[in-house]
């Protein structure tokens, strides 16, 4: 029988890689608002273990585009959205980012760039001088030198502290003293482990087990057996894509009983809810789950317009309405609208001109008119007013590194998957955890 010869595969693969690496290049023009469609690049995992993330960001763009387009566009230019799949892997993200910036001279902004790929794609996007709104909590961006980088969510360290706060001071239970840390072994999930460990142990808690798990593994039976053997009071977790498999095994091996589990803000997600609901049952999910999230109101004119557009986007992307309470979807929606308003305010499609204006529109200047929609913002700009945009995700206040920091709340799910506010840390508790964690 003929046998497979791996050495013959190498030249073919090299040729394929060279072909894949080839791409056209062009540069953007710079005076006035120009003409033709504008593009928002959504660079994120759409396949792979974190495939649930990209669609949430794509939905944000699909909701923001009509808000701009139906109100005159950006100087008449229509905004379009395009996905660029990173597969959640830096190795795949780099060619995706290169292809995105090289092939699209009409990029007005880039959204997405999760912790899976931000470290590799943010410098590429920054070199191309395209404003970006990244959904990464990595501490390396706390004092970034990338001028075009923007972050509308706090660093992961705050997310981790909020989880610890939920374990120690959260409502409806006595303080949990023994925690199991079950986080995926991806870059994004592991960012929570050290700050959570520091804060929890310094406040008298014990880490029963720190268990990094391989995302996408077919089963976690041995991992769960090892975790249960340490008898934790609570599980702190983010293992996107594998949560259902892991938690179902917890329920099975624990005689049908769940252990309370606290998730990061990334677990406030319809995909995550559906997966875990299917795995352990909705009653267990509602009863044993606690999460943390930024304090959204899910109301007001900005949110109303967001929700209307998101529901309308179902004709393009059927799952879009599912993201009505996804924090990242709200924030990126705001980021895209702020970018469009910045272009209008500077009357420029040159990112080096309108990029600084984004921060000004987010933070506002003295006497600025507060606007909640693109339509109102465009009208105010036309009237010669200075504006502050407060969008669907609430107020933004960028620091000198373009990081916008806001506070966390404790949340839960109802049986339909809607987020419910469960409580909030007091200033004293916040200070206690911050000191313990070492902010």
């Amino acid at each position, binding site marked *: 029988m003929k046998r*497979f010869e791996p050495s013959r595969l190498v030249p073919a693969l090299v040729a394929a890689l060279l072909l894949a690496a080839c791409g056209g290049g062009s540069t953007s023009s710079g005076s006035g608002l120009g003409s033709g469609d504008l593009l928002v690049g959504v660079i994120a995992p759409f396949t792979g273990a974190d495939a649930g993330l990209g669609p949430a960001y794509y939905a944000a763009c699909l909701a923001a585009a009509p808000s701009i387009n139906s109100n005159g566009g950006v100087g008449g230019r229509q905004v379009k959205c395009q996905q660029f799949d990173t597969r959640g892997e830096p190795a795949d993200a780099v060619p995706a980012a290169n292809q995105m910036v090289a092939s699209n001279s009409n990029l007005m902004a880039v959204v997405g760039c999760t912790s899976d790929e931000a470290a590799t794609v943010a410098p590429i996007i920054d070199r191309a001088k395209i404003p970006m709104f990244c959904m990464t909590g990595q501490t390396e961006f706390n004092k970034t030198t990338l001028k075009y980088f923007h972050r509308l969510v706090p660093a992961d360290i705050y997310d981790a502290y909020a989880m610890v706060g939920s374990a120690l001071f959260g409502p409806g239970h006595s303080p949990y003293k023994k925690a199991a840390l079950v986080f995926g072994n991806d870059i994004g999930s592991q960012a929570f482990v050290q700050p959570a460990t520091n804060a929890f142990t310094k406040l008298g808690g014990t880490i029963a087990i720190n268990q990094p798990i*391989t995302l996408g593994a077919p089963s976690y039976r*041995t991992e769960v057996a090892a975790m249960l053997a340490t008898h934790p009071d609570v599980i702190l977790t983010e293992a996107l894509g594998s949560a259902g498999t892991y938690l179902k095994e917890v329920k099975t091996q624990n005689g*049908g009983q769940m252990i309370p589990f606290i998730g990061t803000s990334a677990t406030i997600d319809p995909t995550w809810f559906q997966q875990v609901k299917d795995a352990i049952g909705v009653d267990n999910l509602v009863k044993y789950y606690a999460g943390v999230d930024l304090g959204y109101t899910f109301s007001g004119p900005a949110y109303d317009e967001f929700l209307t557009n998101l529901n309308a986007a179902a004709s393009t992307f059927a799952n879009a309405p599912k993201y009505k309470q996804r924090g990242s979807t709200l924030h990126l929606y705001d980021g895209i609208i702020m970018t469009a308003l910045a272009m209008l305010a500077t009357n420029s499609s040159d990112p080096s001109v309108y990029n600084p204006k984004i921060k000004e529109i987010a933070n506002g200047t003295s006497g600025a008119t507060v606007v909640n929609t693109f339509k109102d913002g465009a009208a105010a700009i036309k009237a010669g007013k200075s504006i502050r945009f407060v969008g669907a995700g609430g107020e933004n206040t960028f620091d000198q590194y373009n990081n916008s920091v806001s506070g966390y709340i404790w949340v839960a799910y109802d049986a339909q998957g809607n987020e419910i506010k469960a409580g909030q840390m007091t200033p004293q508790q916040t200070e206690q955890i911050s000191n313990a964690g070492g902010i």
Partner: protein
Amino acid sequence: MNLLVEAFGFGLVSMSVIAIAAVGFTMQFGITNNINLAYGEVMISSAYVAYYVNRAGISIWIGMVAGALFGAVFSFLLNRIVYSPFIRKGTSQIGMVIVSLAVSLMIANLLLPIVGYDYVSYQNSTGELIHIGSIILTTNQIGIMAVSVALMVLIHGLLKYTRLGKAMRATAANPTLARNCGIPTQRVIDAVWLITGALCGLAGVVAAMNSDSFAIVNGATFLITVLAAAVLGGAGQPYGAMIGAVLIGLITELSAAIWSPEYKEVVAFGVLVLVMVLRPQGLLARRGAMAAAG
């Protein structure tokens, strides 16, 4: 010590799942000489067929049969419509690998708009918990092991004692000579795609049951484990694939218990690399069922 015993029990389940898939894959390669990298995607497609059957209120065990039937028909058509025309044109083996890779990507991307990227679970796929000493298993896991053992016995019987099995082995050893001896090799190959496709489909359902929660992305994950077991045992050798499945299944679970679970796949693939260095042809390359027709 308890954890090690528990991990051993879990390893038995893992190896049962891997064995079904790996035997199907390696038989497909051993007899048709085609490395079908779309195998993982056929597995996950079949898992979804069973999911829709199960969601209609039908037992997952019936869904498993539906998955196996789908896998058989899908694989058969895949060969007839896609692979065979390329083979008739004399496409090289490397070329066929690339074709199957392309097919794999096409299936995944065609499936995505149908099933979405969300994770789903079968209903009532766990069963009752049973303690056998320190080993904890569910009734459904025991069912999976029973199915796997039964299939291995059937495959052994097919290859050793039936005319079709002997014709398969003859075709695997030398298709031209087999044809000249009057064996209808094309019909044998069709039968191989049907049988291995059924194994593939059944393996997809079993693997999805084993995971409790699955998504389209798992197709690629399944393939890696299946490839590892098949290569470890000796590509094209069903008995080798069985041994490969035992090793991969037990090593991953035991290493998770002894060391960090983060590295359980690293350990399993480390053993694979070690075996490849010491015995590049795999564990059973020259002594397997496909070595010669008897």
